[in-house]
């Protein structure tokens, strides 16, 4: 930490400035590691890496003796930049009202000055997926109409002046709350009461909601046809306009689906509507794991340290899920579904490693797989030539809690490692 600061002060490196990092062990994730290698960066992009890298004249050389370089990690589910303090309403720009609000874009609401950004990135997280709405809200039965199509997620860099700088994929997918059959009435005080709503009634509500969704998709498709045909009476509509990337297969549908039945139904829905799909927050896939594989649907798992879903689940249900997905050959990434603990992403993945996920697979899930799932595989996620220079320089394994991050580069910029937490640490540490 101190070392990094000194280095930073002694040799300030500005964004876009070319430099070569020498004497480091390089872990490209997509290729075998290289000890004593170098990595050269120019214009914010990786020029090359390897055992021998020729540096142009007058290029800054940074000595990284004893340090390790890893690609920056991606947290695939956060509310980064749009939610600061969940319990302070003014600081939350999430959960738009309305049943179908696909036109809502998380990226334009991104606050680059969020305190969560520097706190999160110091653990090596150089990009995140920002969701337009939290996953836990809007699951109740009855009551006010809950948003179904909730807006567009974005992949953002964890450094920049504004959202235009930071957004790598401004439309990384359309978040959807898939209708559920809810039979348990949950009270905050008394917990769930068994079968409070008869199944037949719950099914009716579900069917009605699903019908509404189908109708909306049909309307969007008619809009698409009318637009393509340049129909005379064509009238622009932001809602349907926002559906076009989805219908054209350019953006996926992001659907939280915890359990087998939901997963099954969501996959059937996506097939019927012929849209790309990413499953979020899968917790208890059961037999649907084969279905996920069959259809090659990527998954963003939640925190392995989460409690298991049901009281009789094995204690390691959440720990071992990533390992199971890996064994089934499903492409997956990690997301924390929050901001406060988004920084713990590598340590969460480490739990999965302890419970059956190979280490290399965990590193890929944190980097290149995550990038590919969210359509930024050509921009970030590995140390390959031409990609954005997003990497982290550590004194060891980034999944290990004791490891110190010494330097962090986002878009080739050596990003300061101080943040609200280090400031508080210094402040109270210096109290006499």
């Amino acid at each position: 930490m101190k070392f990094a600061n000194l280095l930073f002060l002694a040799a300030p490196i500005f964004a876009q400035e070319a430099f070569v990092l020498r004497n480091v062990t390089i872990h490209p994730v997509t290729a075998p590691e290289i000890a004593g290698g170098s990595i050269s960066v120019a214009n914010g992009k990786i020029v090359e890496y390897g055992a021998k890298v020729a540096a142009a004249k007058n290029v800054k050389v940074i000595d990284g003796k004893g340090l390790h370089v890893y690609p920056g990690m991606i947290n695939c589910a956060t509310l980064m930049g749009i939610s600061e303090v969940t319990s302070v309403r003014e600081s939350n720009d999430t959960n738009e009202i309305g049943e179908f609000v696909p036109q809502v874009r998380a990226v334009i609401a991104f606050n680059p000055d969020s305190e969560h950004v520097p706190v999160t990135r110091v653990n090596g997280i150089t990009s995140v997926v920002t969701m337009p709405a939290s996953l836990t809200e809007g699951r109740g039965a009855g009551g006010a109409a809950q948003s179904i199509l909730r807006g567009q997620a974005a992949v953002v860099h964890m450094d920049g002046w504004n959202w235009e700088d930071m957004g790598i994929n401004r439309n990384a997918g359309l978040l959807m709350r898939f209708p559920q059959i809810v039979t348990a009435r949950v009270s905050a005080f008394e917990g769930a009461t068994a079968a409070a709503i008869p199944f037949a009634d719950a099914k009716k509500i579900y069917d009605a909601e699903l019908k509404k969704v189908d109708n909306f998709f049909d309307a969007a498709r008619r809009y698409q046809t009318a637009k393509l045909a340049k129909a005379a009476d064509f009238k622009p509509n932001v809602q349907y306009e926002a559906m076009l990337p989805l219908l054209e297969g350019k953006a996926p549908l992001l659907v939280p689906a915890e359990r087998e039945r939901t997963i099954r139904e969501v996959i059937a829905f996506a097939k019927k509507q012929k849209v790309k799909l990413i499953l979020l927050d899968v917790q208890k896939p059961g037999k649907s794991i084969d279905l996920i594989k069959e259809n090659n649907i990527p998954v963003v798992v939640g925190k392995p340290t989460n409690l298991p879903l049901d009281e009789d689940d094995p204690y390691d249900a959440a720990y071992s899920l990533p390992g199971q997905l890996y064994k089934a050959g499903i492409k997956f990434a990690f997301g924390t579904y929050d901001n406060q603990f988004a920084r713990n992403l590598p340590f969460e993945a480490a739990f999965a490693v302890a419970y059956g996920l190979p280490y290399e697979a965990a590193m890929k899930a944190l980097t290149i797989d995550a990038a590919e799932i969210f359509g930024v595989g050509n921009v970030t996620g590995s140390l390959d030539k031409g990609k954005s220079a997003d990497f982290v320089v550590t004194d060891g394994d980034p999944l290990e809690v004791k490891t110190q991050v010494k330097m962090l580069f986002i878009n080739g910029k050596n990003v300061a490692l101080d943040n609200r937490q280090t400031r508080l640490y210094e402040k109270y540490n210096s109290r006499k």
Partner: protein
Amino acid sequence: MKQFLLFISLAMFSLAQTPVTVAIRNAKLVTISGPVIAKGTVVLRNGLIEEASENATVPDGAWVIEGDGLTVYPGLIDSISNIGIAPPAPTGPVTGAITATALAPPAPPARGPEDRPRTTSWERAADKFRSNDPRIESARNAGFTSAVIFPTTGIFAGQGAVVNLAGDNPSKMIIESPAGQYMTLTGGGGAGGARGFPSSGMGVYAYVRQIFIDLDYYERTKAAYQANPSGKQRPAYDRALEGVKESGRLLMPATSKVEMERVIKLASELKMPFVLYGVHEGYRAASVLKQANASVLISAKWPTRPPTADPEAEEPLRTLELRESAASTPVTLNKEGVKFAFYSDGQTPAEFLKGVRLAVTRGLSHDDAVKAMTLSAAEIHGVSNRLGSIEKGKIANLVVTKGDLLTEKPAIQYVFVDGMHYVPTADGAPTPTAPQGTGRRPR
């Protein structure tokens, strides 16, 4: 001969309102209070059992029933019922406060214990009892001659009554009143306390404790005032406290072991006899109940998967375990020596007996099961000096069958209530032609 007898008895019932003298001769007597008498005679006179022994003399002029091949049991008692005081329960659980809260009339929300929320402790089932409930006949057809009826809405719902299940005049059907206070203990408010105090479980417990603290103070101030009113402020009359006091026994709900422990702890502070009802998890709490010397009323409505449940819902192991093991509670408690009786929990008599038979398949003996619906029930409700067994001097409530009583289709030949005899209709349902409430069909 038979025809003649039939005629005679017909004439007697239509002419006289007093019960005839009946002798059931040479029948198997399952006395419950003592050993089974393989061949004995029981004599009923004036609504009471005059004799029951191997060699009882048959009085002159008695209607003699030849008991060869017949078995005589004491009439069955449903230990908690709302027969005669409430319409037949709709589908859904009757135990506890779910119904209680659902049926609670809208009232301004209570602010605290001083408003005596959800308390109708002064209400007596005996006062509300009506003899024209068609369920009375169907219960009797199944062998039930008595029921202990309670108002069931509220924390202190009201006072029970032991009633006989035959007659026109409700007053004459009451055997004992009051017979315990029916309580529920769930926080019914919820929704941020919109229904007033107490909305939480702990609030209910605090309220119950408060009532007994208030009762203690109430009695002392009342006694002091009565001793010498002069110069003293008069204490206000409190019907809630009066009602609790006169009920004499508390019926408190407990399904799970932890609830039993909690309720026993609460009840033992209250210095009033208590009985637990529900008790489905008793199979794992036998020692707890034994240690507390608690008597329990077991709901014969065993937990089942709700028919409206989500077919794909994963049920927790503890739910499944309770569902699997609840019916083993009676045999477990019997082994441990815990006194228990069964109650119908809103089920029809046929469903009730089916539930009891399930307990028998889990190892409870037939006669122990009968005991839990006769003598044990009478003992728990404090009427064992009048009901519950075939003994001299007790009320003449009997069921006469061919074969065992607890079979799928028991061949009930006669039912005697207060010495009056009834022949069950074939399907066990009340016949529409019968005048409501009387149901007398002399043989």
